[in-house]
């Protein structure tokens, strides 16, 4: 039994890989029940007034896109279905807008017929969040200057709808967060002062430390991790990567639990 404590880690990795691959080919099809938090987030965004303008800020890079990209796509579908005007961009996370751009073009332009500069705009990534946010609160076009394609942003009609970030012009901010700066910086510099509701998509690792903000109402809603993304996809009726990955998540969780139990059986039965 003591040998259970000394299993070669290569065997552990091999078992994990085999199980992962098997589940990909033979999915379990476990149902995903929607949590109250995800439902609240969905309802909040769904019930914004018609013709609202929302800012979607993908504050992440390639490392976190596995969890956050499905959320971004789901939010994009939801906003497009409701015909909201959409402004996409961030500060200090240079990869975010570049990773999202293909999906934005495919969903907004091709599937929903959104017109760039009229119905939506991408302002890319700006340096230094605190500086950008402080400027955008009084002069959004001045804070951005150029769009994703380095064109002067003032030439686009949609910019006239958002002279500055305030509750008068922006109905909600949807922030996908994986570090600093992130949703907390949006809250501190933008949402807390303006009163604009903040909806957050968060990686599972950071969900525990964001719970106080959800409980206090500072976050109007939160999509928590890959499971939250899967729940959100089921709510909008679009099966994306998050829903497809839930079986893998389940199996890996079970495998980790099994490893922990095996290791502890070996530990408890060892000769002292």
């Amino acid at each position: 039994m003591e040998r259970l404590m000394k299993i070669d880690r290569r065997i552990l990795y091999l078992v994990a890989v085999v199980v992962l691959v098997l589940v990909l080919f033979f999915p379990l099809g476990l149902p995903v029940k929607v949590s109250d938090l995800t439902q609240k987030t969905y309802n909040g965004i769904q019930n914004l007034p018609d013709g609202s303008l929302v800012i979607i800020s993908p504050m992440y890079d390639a490392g976190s896109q596995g969890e956050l990209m499905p959320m971004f796509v789901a939010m994009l579908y939801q906003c497009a279905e409701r015909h909201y005007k959409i402004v996409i961009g961030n500060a200090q996370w240079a990869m975010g807008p570049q990773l999202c751009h293909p999906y934005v073009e495919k969903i907004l332009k091709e599937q929903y017929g959104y017109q760039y500069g009229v119905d939506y705009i991408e302002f890319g990534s700006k340096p230094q969040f605190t500086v950008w946010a402080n400027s955008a609160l009084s002069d959004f076009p001045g804070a951005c200057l150029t769009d994703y394609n380095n064109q002067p942003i003032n030439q686009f009609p949609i910019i006239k709808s958002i002279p500055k970030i305030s509750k008068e012009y922006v109905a909600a901010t949807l922030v996908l967060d994986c570090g600093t700066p992130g949703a907390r910086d949006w809250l501190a510099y933008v949402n807390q002062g303006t009163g604009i509701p903040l909806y957050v998509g968060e990686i599972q690792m950071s969900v525990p430390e964001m719970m106080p903000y959800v409980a206090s109402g500072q976050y109007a809603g939160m999509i928590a991790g890959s499971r939250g993304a899967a729940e959100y996809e089921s709510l909008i009726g679009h099966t994306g990567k998050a829903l497809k990955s839930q079986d893998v998540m389940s199996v890996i969780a079970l495998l980790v639990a099994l490893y922990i139990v095996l290791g502890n059986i070996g530990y408890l039965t060892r000769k002292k």
Partner: protein
Amino acid sequence: MRKEGPMILTVLSALVVLFNNYFFLGQKWGLADPLNNWFQLSWGIALALGFINLTSIHWKYVQRRREGWFYSIVIMVCMYGYLILGLEQTHNGPQFDWIYQNIFTPLMSTIFALVAFFITSAAYRAFRVRTKEATVLLLCALFVMLGRAPIGDAIWGGWSKFVSNWLMGVVNMAGYRGIQLGAAIGGFATALRIMLGLERAHIGGTGTQ
């Protein structure tokens, strides 16, 4: 003046930003606007400095034929090659974007995907019920982990969700509230010390006064 100069700059900048953020007149006058622009410039300069520093370090490795010096050449070729491509094409350029989407992004995702295997191995080796507290921690971790995956619902029905939500929404939240309050107060105290010149580590001093 070597130490007093930076300290005076720090204090003056902090006062300007404070006045700008907390007083109506400060916002009306836009006192911090030039500072904000200089801050953005300094960020760009820091990036360039990083470039120069990396080049200097890796060039030394190549000159001395340090173990793994070939990888230093690879780093510099990739770094300068991508820089030149980016300057020529901007981020919308076809080759620049292709490298970004098809090489850089998958590489970054791969690094993070490896974490999953490290966690499975670490869970097996490190999570031991050595004490009562460790046992409680372990049980909580198991409940939260399984509760967040659909398998938890399949095994325990609604119980896993209930326990997982209670642990996250009550126990964890209380703990994190305390931590964040403490961190915020500590950060405020440190900022005050820096503004008053009591903390000198950031200007090459020997620490605190």
